[in-house]
């Protein structure tokens, strides 16, 4: 089976993932023919149309009432098969975290986290494993804030993930996107989905609410539960 370069891109909603990925693919001539994107989202997504309108091969997975990261893991094997059928050599998966508890990042494959410089100075400290376990952190919208805010934001990212490279990319003009393209093209490849491992374990159904319970109250709470300390 031929090898496919797989890259996980994760970041909060509206952080600029789609724009940056589009700019990145467009920064290399002819890459559109062999680089595709799968978007994982919870409720709905218009991004597939956005990619297709730019001539980029794309598909969407809607997680519905499942956690998008759990949905991602249970479907990544099928996504690789789709990429093979489309004759892609690079597959980018794009997902917005739901609760910041999980991360789609896989061992030995490039993991990218995307954060928005406008989203508040403590965002890096709140983002969890999708930032902490990333190889590369992309910061968007930094052209709109002061140099000092950019520097402090980078500093906060490095408190959480000291080993990651930090790239400031302008998703509107594409400035810096070629650097991301170079990192992606140097990323790891995989042929057999069964050999992939998550970098961070995901909790399975924790409590009755994971299983669809809607009633509130102690009597209906089964499974793992933790009470708030007030």
């Amino acid at each position: 089976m031929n090898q496919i370069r797989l890259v996980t891109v994760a970041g909060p909603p509206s952080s600029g993932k789609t724009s940056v990925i589009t700019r990145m693919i467009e920064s290399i001539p002819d890459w559109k023919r062999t680089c595709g994107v799968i978007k994982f989202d919870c409720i709905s997504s218009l991004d597939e149309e956005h990619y297709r309108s730019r001539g980029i091969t794309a598909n969407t997975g809607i997680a519905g009432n499942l956690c998008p990261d759990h949905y991602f893991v249970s479907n990544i094997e099928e996504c690789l098969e789709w990429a093979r059928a489309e004759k892609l050599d690079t597959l980018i998966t794009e997902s917005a975290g739901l609760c910041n508890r999980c991360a789609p990042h896989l061992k030995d494959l490039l993991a990218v986290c995307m954060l928005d410089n406008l989203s508040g100075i403590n965002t890096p400290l709140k983002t969890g494993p999708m930032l902490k376990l990333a190889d590369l952190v992309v910061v968007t919208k930094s052209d709109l804030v002061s140099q000092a805010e950019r520097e402090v934001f980078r500093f906060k990212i490095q408190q959480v993930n000291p080993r990651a490279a930090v790239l400031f990319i302008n998703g509107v003009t594409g400035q810096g996107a070629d650097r991301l393209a170079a990192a992606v093209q140097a990323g790891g490849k995989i042929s057999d989905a069964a050999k992939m491992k998550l970098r961070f374990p995901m909790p399975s159904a924790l409590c009755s609410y994971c299983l669809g319970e809607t009633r509130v109250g102690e009597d209906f709470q089964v499974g793992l539960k933790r009470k708030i300390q007030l």
Partner: protein
Amino acid sequence: MSRTLEQLLCQPLCTVSKHYPAVSDFLAANGLDLSDFSFEDLVRSLSDEWFAGAGTTPDVLLEDGAAFFAGLLGAESIRQIESLEVLSGFDKAGCPEACSLMLKPGDVTCIVGPTGSGKSRLLADIEWLACGDTPTRRTVKLNGSMPDDSFRSSHSGRLVAQITQNMNFVLDMNVSDFLLMHARSRYLENAEDVVSEVIDIANDLSGESFRADTPVTFLSGGQSRALMIADVACIGRAPVVLIDEIENAGTDKRRALELLIQRDKIVLMATHDPLLILQADRRVVIRNGGMSAILATNDHERQLLRQLEEMDSSIQQARSFFRSGKSLTGVESLGNLSDNRE
């Protein structure tokens, strides 16, 4: 205060955090607390269950810690840049560029050329220490030699500080707290002194004064720009400062330039303003993505600069005339509006 990486890893964390408050944030991000343990002892004290829950291993956590502490030490060692040279590559048509560009601390260089001509690309090449790996195939030399890979990876993206027209402060903090946070992220020992110096300088550069407890989001365009310039000059670490199309009103640009020169910054200005262009030592002309000429500002141009300055001063007088609520009724000529006509 020089420390080695080994010392940081084996000193009690509560001692280390006195000099490096960021340590507690790093620990918190990993679900750990400050204690009398050293970082290495802390990692050894954690149970297998803890590592399973955190999705990490002792080796990975130790490596993370070493990378974090190395980053703290790296931030202290400010490398002095004596020269930065952009060696010519190719323009958008694939033709070789006409010239290379040598930059030294204290130099002011303008970048001129129409929108889309490749000014941003030139800056990006400097920012990323290009080594023939960008579309222009330019190469950047530091202090006369090519930076090695480890220098490139640790300094890429940190060399150029930018101040542009569409930048704003977005944090909900006052001026003093904001600057202190920036200074502390740089581990400046005398952070409070530096902050009050920055506020004084910024007030000096901006016509309208603001206070230490003014929220940064309340500052006017001119005040914001003045504060950004003072902050970049005194707190920022980047050796190269890019000023991109800053409007005239509200900031004394000439004094701002003097400040940056005095702090040994390499100053680049992307501008179409003839006054600024002639105040610079020289200008690099960008055409079709390539550096096509470097023009030094000569004595003849400096003579003509005086005429421009007189024109500018008339405009400034007219501006303050209207700002003070006066009327042009009865004014015969716009030549001298500084007279006190009520």
